[in-house]
């Protein structure tokens, strides 16, 4: 009886390491890279839009930049929605 309880504790301990988040630095760096990329896309589009409005720059560049930003914003919003949904799922879990 005592031995089997010990076994369960051991199993539980090994399962705990599997659920630990992987080295958080690489994931954080990855997310930071994506965010930086996103911000750069937004800024580029803003500058292109400003140039198109004030100096009459090429409208094709403006359309392309807007389409790219739309895609980037959509991706970011989708990922954020999924993350928020996951948190809510955890919060709803009966303790």
């Amino acid at each position: 009886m005592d031995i089997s309880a010990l076994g369960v504790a051991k199993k539980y301990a090994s399962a705990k390491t599997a659920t630990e988040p992987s080295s958080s630095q690489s994931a954080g760096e990855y997310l930071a890279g994506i965010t930086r990329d996103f911000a750069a896309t937004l800024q580029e589009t803003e500058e292109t839009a400003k140039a198109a409005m004030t100096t009459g720059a090429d409208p094709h560049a403006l359309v392309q930049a807007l389409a790219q930003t739309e895609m980037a914003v959509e991706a970011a919003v989708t990922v954020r929605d999924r993350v928020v949904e996951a948190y809510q799922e955890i919060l709803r879990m009966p303790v």
Partner: protein
Amino acid sequence: MSEFSNALSVSSSGLQAQSQRLRHLSENIANVDTPGYRRKTIAFHTTMMGSDTPGLVETGRVRMDQSDLARIYDPTHPMADESGNYEGSNVNLMIELADAREAQRSYEANLRMFEQTRQMGRSLFDLLRR
């Protein structure tokens, strides 16, 4: 960034090139009655976008068509020579119109590609949302 945004830039460069082609065509058509005007032609070539990603189309140098100018008989014209002829332009309206129509079709094709790329990207994110 992603292949989608690469495709968008390639389509956008195609749109830009075709609109520039149309600009020179309209210049030719506008100058069809200008004495001594030579029609302009424009060449397209590919540029490398990144390390080995082929892609963007770019317009090259504008060239003058070196074919003979049309000789028009009009002794009252201020530029007429002793025989009463003066040199008109070498623009052929038929060729210019056909070329303009081709430019329009190519522009539409690029536009469709642009739209399709956007649609594909949107469908992909729709998949993620479900």
